[in-house]
């Protein structure tokens, strides 16, 4: 197995190279693979036959480290020899905010996308029908926006923010099970043109706070 210290040195080496050239996460693979073994050996003391094993084993470390780096550095510098269009991290790293009723809100400019959390979809059981709001409907934070029927119950989903419904996820009409299989991505329910985002987000929880909230809910139940 590759020693931990070697993994750490490799991670730091790749991140340093990555940040200088591009913020693309995929580039780190290519950088690591193309870097001559002599250079790697000098930088981190890496032997040739370790390269493949190391690439797989340090992926998690790079992922968690890179996320921290990106959160601290929202814009990236561009090397003179290449022009790289700055782009945001992939959607799976975008911050979701959560309500105490287990809805999530993901903000992109003035538009908020709403869905329910993984905790909520597990509690619901298999979803058989989703009654979505009409496009154009005005919602206030806390209004009942969606009614979800599962094998266990008809449950209300509340709007995490105020605004006008601009789009609903039509796929849920024929595939309500997306709420179970992809609650954080393709199982999104509706989008809102937010009317008071700055004030209302203060009452929502970030991922860490929401995870703790779910733990305390499980303890109390």
């Amino acid at each position, binding site marked *: 197995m590759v020693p931990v210290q070697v993994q750490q040195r490799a991670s730091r080496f790749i991140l340093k190279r990555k940040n200088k050239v591009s913020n693309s996460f995929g580039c780190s693979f290519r950088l690591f693979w193309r870097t001559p073994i002599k250079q790697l050996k000098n930088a981190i003391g890496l032997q040739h036959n370790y390269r493949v094993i190391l690439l797989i084993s340090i992926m998690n470390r790079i992922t968690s480290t890179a996320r921290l780096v990106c959160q601290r550095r929202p814009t990236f510098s561009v090397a003179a020899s290449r022009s790289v269009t700055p782009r945001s991290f992939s959607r799976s790293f975008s911050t979701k905010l959560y309500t105490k009723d287990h809805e999530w809100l993901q903000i992109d400019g003035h538009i908020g996308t709403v869905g329910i959390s993984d905790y909520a979809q597990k509690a619901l059981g298999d979803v058989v029908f989703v*009654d979505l709001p009409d496009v154009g409907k005005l919602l206030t934070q806390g209004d009942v926006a969606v*009614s979800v029927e599962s094998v266990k119950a008809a449950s*209300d989903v509340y709007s995490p923010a105020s605004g006008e419904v601009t789009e609903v996820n039509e796929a849920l009409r024929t595939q309500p099970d997306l709420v179970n299989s992809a609650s954080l991505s393709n199982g999104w329910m509706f989008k809102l043109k937010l009317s008071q985002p700055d004030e209302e987000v203060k009452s929502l929880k970030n991922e860490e706070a929401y995870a703790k909230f779910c733990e305390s809910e499980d303890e109390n139940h």
Partner: protein
Amino acid sequence: MRQISPLSRRSFTTTSAPQPVRVLLSKSTDPYLNLAIEDWLFHHGQYDKQTLYLWRNEPTVVIGRNQNPWKECDVKALERDSIHLVRRSSGGGAVYHDLGNSCFSFFSDKSSYDKNKNSLIICDALRHFNITASPNTRNDILVNDRKISGSAYRLSGKRCLHHGTLLISTHLHNLQKYLYVGNPYIKSAGVASVRSPVQNLSHYAPMLTHDLLMNAITKEFFHHYGHRCGVELLDEEEMKKIPQLSEAYENLRKWGWRFGETPSFEHKLQYTFLWGTVSIHLHSEEGRFKKVEASSEPPEVLEGLSSLLEGKAYDRHGLSEAMEMMEDRGSTVTQRRREVEEWLVREM
């Protein structure tokens, strides 16, 4: 306020801490009012107490929140026989109520919501009459593999409702008459019912009545929660004076809720008359005709009907309205249109 006497029989001792309770019994058999009371208790009840609400309805078909009435029951027969059609706010399937069917509703806070415990309360109540009942995996209650009770649920924030039926001496042939197995020509996005063989409790305990069973359920409810209270008898006129309840009552009666909340569906129909053929492909949304493709051979019989139907209510009144607006093409065509209308009303 009636006082209930202490229990004389125990099936097991309760181990959880005592919780305050509230029991209400409706004197009305108006299904809209009983469901409005339930809605009012759900939104405005006291969730620091475990609440039990007992009621029964005059002949009614009750469909689930997201069901298609035209697919689940014979809507025309209900109108003809003056049977109520009510849409409830919980999920699940279609049921037939009459005075031989009793209903129970348990209201709990999310922290103390336990539908299995609620079902056990019912089963223990039935034991008072030497009936051995048990819940299955769907939380239906069975006696000798026959369903005598079904349940449905509604959750909103911290508020939880578990309600269900109990067949005591229901007219089972009416149940079969008014509830469909399923119309194969309607393709619907809504929720379908799950059919089960049913039986009346009076088959096992001939002297069983609504009052006796409600009394037993109340006793077991007190026993399970370790608390007692007086039973509140709800008077129809007094209830209608409560503003939120009155609003819920009106909303339940509206066409927009009963039929307009139907999920979108398609209905394909065709028929060969002596004079020609008719083919109709209907799309409905919110209980109205949305897109219609109607054609006939000879074409003048249904010419123009497609656009006239759009937006009309999906029932014989909407159809009749649209057909009256069609261009007059002579008495033969009018007669043929009448035949098509009669056929469509039978099929829809």
